[in-house]
């Protein structure tokens, strides 16, 4: 059987095959760039990340040490050729750090022929409700659609979009099946493996992912339950795109059973309900998801917190590890609500700082191990 996990890398055979067929790929930044729209144009959307970066010094030269290390690593990969298969980048204003990847890269390419590389940023509202939010997002998506059509010389028909929505919804329903397996009292899959799968889903052609992952799920269901773990943990935080990071925690005996992060199930959960037309359907669905503290309504209605607490219950979580990307504004300033609310709900919480380049594995390991000793059942 082909191993799906080998497709979790930033560079992998499925992308190479895609390029050999003469087809185009577009990097996306943040979860408000609808992959459906690019897919409908015959493009391969690849969500940008910095997995496995070991040196972001060039990224730091451009973006300064103030930029989060995730953004610096992504930028480093853009500069050093890791992403040389891209034919464009579409960014949404998810957070200012991620937006700077786009800005800096646009500047970097300022003297190049713009017909050779597609660059576009779209806006996404930071409030869910309000009568202007959805219409604004729809107009941004329509502009993106027009831009993609012009640049790549294609026509994105309603039929194609409708089909793309179906393909992406299938991915979402398969990811849900994966998370149901993780919810089980006898889980068969580690958090590390699960992250590799969600990363693959954001990196390879969706049809191919769906086909391979269906088989993978069938195999998973026949696996023996994992043994020897001491606690069931949930991972929350921003751009955790590094399976090695999760491995450090799981090697200490804490099985990650669910997550609320950028690269887990978050953007792969709620299906897009087709109503009326595709663009409006995408806009409505994308804006009704609970994504991250970027959406500014935590003070009045903290749906992120409700979702996390709900998952703690459903997945029988013993404790939450809250990883804070250093200099992350959206998650870093979330303490006020999330941290206090979780403490008030008596959910054990470990807060750890994270940098994209994992130089502090030992620090993480001792914190994770002590946390596991704290929450594991059976007294010391």
């Amino acid at each position, binding site marked *: 059987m082909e191993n799906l996990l080998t497709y979790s890398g930033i560079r992998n055979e499925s992308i190479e095959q895609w390029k050999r067929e003469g087809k185009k790929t577009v990097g996306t930044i943040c979860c408000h760039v609808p992959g459906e729209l690019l897919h409908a144009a015959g493009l391969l959307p690849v969500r940008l990340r910095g997995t496995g970066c070991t040196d972001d010094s060039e990224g730091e030269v451009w973006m300064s040490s103030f930029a989060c290390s995730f953004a610096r690593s992504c930028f480093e990969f853009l500069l050093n050729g890791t992403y040389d298969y891209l034919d464009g980048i579409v960014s949404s204003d998810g957070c200012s750090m991620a937006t700077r990847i786009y800005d800096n890269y646009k500047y970097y390419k300022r003297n190049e022929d713009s017909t050779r590389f597609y660059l576009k940023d779209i806006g996404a509202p930071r409030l869910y409700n309000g009568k202007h939010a959805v219409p604004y997002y729809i107009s941004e998506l329509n502009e993106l659609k027009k831009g993609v059509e012009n640049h790549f010389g294609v026509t994105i028909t309603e039929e194609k979009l409708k089909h793309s929505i179906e393909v992406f919804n299938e991915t979402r329903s398969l990811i849900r099946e994966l998370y149901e397996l993780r919810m089980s009292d006898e889980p068969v899959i580690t958090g590390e493996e699960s992250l590799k799968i969600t990363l693959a889903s954001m990196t390879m052609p969706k049809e191919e992912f769906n086909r391979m992952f269906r088989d993978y799920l069938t195999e998973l269901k026949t696996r023996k339950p994992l043994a020897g773990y001491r606690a069931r943990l949930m991972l929350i935080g921003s751009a955790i795109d590094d399976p090695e990071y999760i491995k450090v925690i799981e090697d200490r005996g804490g099985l990650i059973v669910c997550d609320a992060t950028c690269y887990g199930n978050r953007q792969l959960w709620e299906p897009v309900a087709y109503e009326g037309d595709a663009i409006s359907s995408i806009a409505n669905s994308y804006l009704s998801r609970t994504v991250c503290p970027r959406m500014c309504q935590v003070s009045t209605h903290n749906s992120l917190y409700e979702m996390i607490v709900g998952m703690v219950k459903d997945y029988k979580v013993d404790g939450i590890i809250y990883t804070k990307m250093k200099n992350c504004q959206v998650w870093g300033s979330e303490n006020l609500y999330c941290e206090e609310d979780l403490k008030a709900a008596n959910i*054990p*919480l470990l*807060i750890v*700082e994270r940098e994209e380049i994992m130089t*502090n594995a030992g*620090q993480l390991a*001792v*914190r994770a*191990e*002590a*946390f596991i*000793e*704290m929450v594991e059942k059976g*007294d*010391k």
Partner: protein
Amino acid sequence: MNPDIPDWRGGLVTAGVDIGSTSTQAVIMVDGQLYAYSSIRTGSDSPNSAMDAINIAMEGTGITSQDIDFTVGTGYGRVNVPIADKTVTEITCHAKGSNYIYGSSVRTLLDMGGQDCKAIHCDETGKVTSFIMNDKCAAGTGRGMEVIANLLSVPIEEIGDLSLNVDEEPNPLSTICVVFAKNELTALMRNGWPIEKVLASYCRAMAIRVVRLLERNGMEANFAITGGIAKNTGIVRRIEKMLGVEALTSELDPQIAGALGGALIAKTLVEKRK
């Protein structure tokens, strides 16, 4: 050696070895009572340091390593304790050990070790209920204090008392990064500050740093400090003043809390297996 235990033979002998980044302690307990201990400098070879510490603790007791029923390794080098039957993190061990040293009423702990600093909450059994550690900085740690002691050529044991010998508390050092702090300290010396005032400034900065850590984890009475820095009065008095509480004291050496906790956990583990 504990004179209240006339003979260890026939009792349950457990040990805890805490290999810290800077110092290593070994504790031997008989039936859950402290029997003997040692504290040495961690050398470049952690397994050797562990064995040296345990051998020194056993000296004169007649106990040999074969007589120890169960050993828990803890601390930074816990995986390097050759005779360990199990490893447990220093966070868990310090809470357990403090429960023994300071009694079951202790709820908030500050462990100030050689290379990190932890604020811990625990329950009446000494089980950790929450904790927080400093990230990536030698400030607020014993190692930082050593660097400053060396720079000023003051024996580390005297820093605390000297730093309290000032008429008025100076401003804290503006930076707490140990390397930059060295620069700032030399500048203060050049400006004619007496050594006491310089030390007061450094101790104050360090105390502010750990008080923030404690406040972040939440303060609950009763409060105790473990680790080598618990012996530094200049830090302890300042922390107490800022928090408005007095730290619990004990006749026992606060530096052995981790190893002691390890030996206590060893006892529980042996009893569970029976």
